[in-house]
């Protein structure tokens, strides 16, 4: 005799056993997937209460429902409205948050740091409300530094692609004037597949600008030697590299016997 109560009870028991059994089985799977996520640098910062306070309630809900990318994009657009209102500090805070939400996005680190180190810094330097030049220069420095710091966090999060290394190198070169550091970062950038050819050349240029002529000469010669075919690398502009090598040989007074034979090199652009 099967009463309804026992039938229902059996069904619930079956459901509970299924879910419980699967639950016990899925936990190690989830942990393995999670560990691999960390290893592969997937996902972003865990959403903290402070983050939730920064965004609207709706955005917080969306964040918690698997729409992290869309929320980051939305906040990015909001950050640009602050740009139009010249609300630099709010913009900075929000852009930092966006970068935290999707730390594997090249775009966010890149554009945020560019806004800090170029646009806001430029604006701070030409602030019509601040008559004292020293203060304006100090503010410019501060914003450039904010951009540099942001990019340095960026390369920590995306060390396996050339873009942010190149961006950081460019910033160090153009805004900070630290050419030695710029050369180092160009070298990192050039070591990744897909890096543009100018990254390799920038290493040499920056070393020269840093006054490290010996090192620059060595670098150019190594680059030259690493590509015996001088082909398959469009835009390497070997004629320019040959130019640099010849100029450096003159400046460093390299004996003729040790100079590079650059004859027969055509432009492979």
């Amino acid at each position: 005799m099967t009463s309804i109560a026992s039938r229902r009870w059996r069904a619930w028991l079956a459901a509970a056993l299924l879910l419980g059994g699967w639950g016990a089985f899925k936990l190690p799977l989830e942990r393995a997937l999670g560990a691999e996520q960390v290893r592969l640098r997937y996902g972003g910062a865990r959403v903290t209460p402070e983050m939730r306070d920064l965004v609207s309630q709706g955005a917080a809900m969306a964040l918690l429902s698997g729409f992290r990318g869309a929320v980051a994009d939305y906040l990015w657009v909001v950050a640009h409205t602050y740009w139009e209102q010249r609300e630099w500090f709010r913009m900075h805070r929000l852009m930092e948050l966006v970068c935290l939400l999707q730390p594997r996005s090249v775009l966010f680190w890149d554009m945020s740091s560019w806004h800090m180190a170029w646009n806001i810094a430029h604006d701070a330097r030409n602030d019509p409300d601040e008559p004292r030049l020293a203060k304006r220069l100090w503010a410019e420095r501060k914003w450039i530094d904010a951009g540099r710091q942001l990019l340095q966090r960026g390369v920590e999060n995306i060390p396996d692609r050339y873009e942010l290394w190149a961006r950081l190198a460019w910033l160090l070169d153009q805004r900070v004037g630290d050419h030695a550091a710029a050369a180092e970062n160009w070298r990192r950038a050039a070591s990744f597949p897909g890096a543009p050819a100018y990254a390799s050349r920038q290493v040499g240029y920056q070393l020269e600008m840093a006054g490290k002529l010996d090192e620059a000469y060595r670098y150019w010669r190594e680059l030259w030697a690493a590509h015996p075919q001088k082909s398959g690398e469009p835009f390497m502009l070997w004629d320019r590299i040959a130019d640099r090598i010849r100029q450096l040989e003159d400046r460093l007074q390299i004996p003729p016997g040790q100079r590079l034979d650059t004859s027969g090199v055509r432009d492979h652009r």
Partner: protein
Amino acid sequence: MVHRDRAQGIRDPVMSDTHPIRLRGVAKHFPLHWRRGRVIAVENLDLEIRRGEVFGLLGPNGSGKSTTLKMILGLTPPTRGEVELFGEPPARPDSRRRLGFLPESPYFYRFLSGAETLRFFGRLCGVPNRRLDERIDELIALVGLAHGRDRPLATYSKGMLQRIGLAQALVHDPELVLLDEPTAGVDPMGSRDIKDLILRLKAAGKTVVLSSHLLEQVEEVCDRVAILHLGRKIVEGPLDSLLSSGDRATLEVSGYDAARTDAIRAALASAGAQLVAVGRPRLTLEEIFVREVRRAGGDKG
């Protein structure tokens, strides 16, 4: 356990063959939410439907007819007791293979045409595709729906829906047909057709169980009836014996002359009988129902 032999799976093939449906001590209670008690839909019901008969499950609305049919179909399990369909628990799909069901005021997928509806149910019943077209034509003709064959069911009248409902119940040529309120809301002509169809099914050797709250509508088709009231069976039996009243009989007399009634009375008296009334002595089911409800009420005191 009362039915220990059942629990051990010992079944009587003869019984299941002669009685396609058997209910023993069946009760169905619906618990109310928040432990406010329970509603007794059916209580202590015994039923045995015999093969080849037309059985009427009668009673007013809410007397437990539909619940009983649902339990027979395995749609809802009984709280207590045993339901057997062809000797098997009805939850098994195999026991439903030999059964056709027309639900109360049936609705189907409104966007399907009559033929598509039959095709759908035919597939569910495992009617082979090559048989299906032929079977659909037969059924459309059987229930008289030629004009509705290719129209979507959304445009059907109540009577047409009832007809397509009957057709789908018969799509796999089942030996047992359950009809929940087959004539409810159907016009007199439609009702006549449905009753004729039931008689034809009986003639073809099918077993038919029908429920109705309009007692007189089914009088002429049922062999046996059970009347339910508040979930309990208050009467069961062959229609003929139920409708005759005690030791009374109706004599059909030819050459009757009202002026000579006294002579007839005297003749009857000499035979030890009495002429009670001249007229039609048959009771209606309504009368029986009211009488039985009163008696049941009187028993309870």
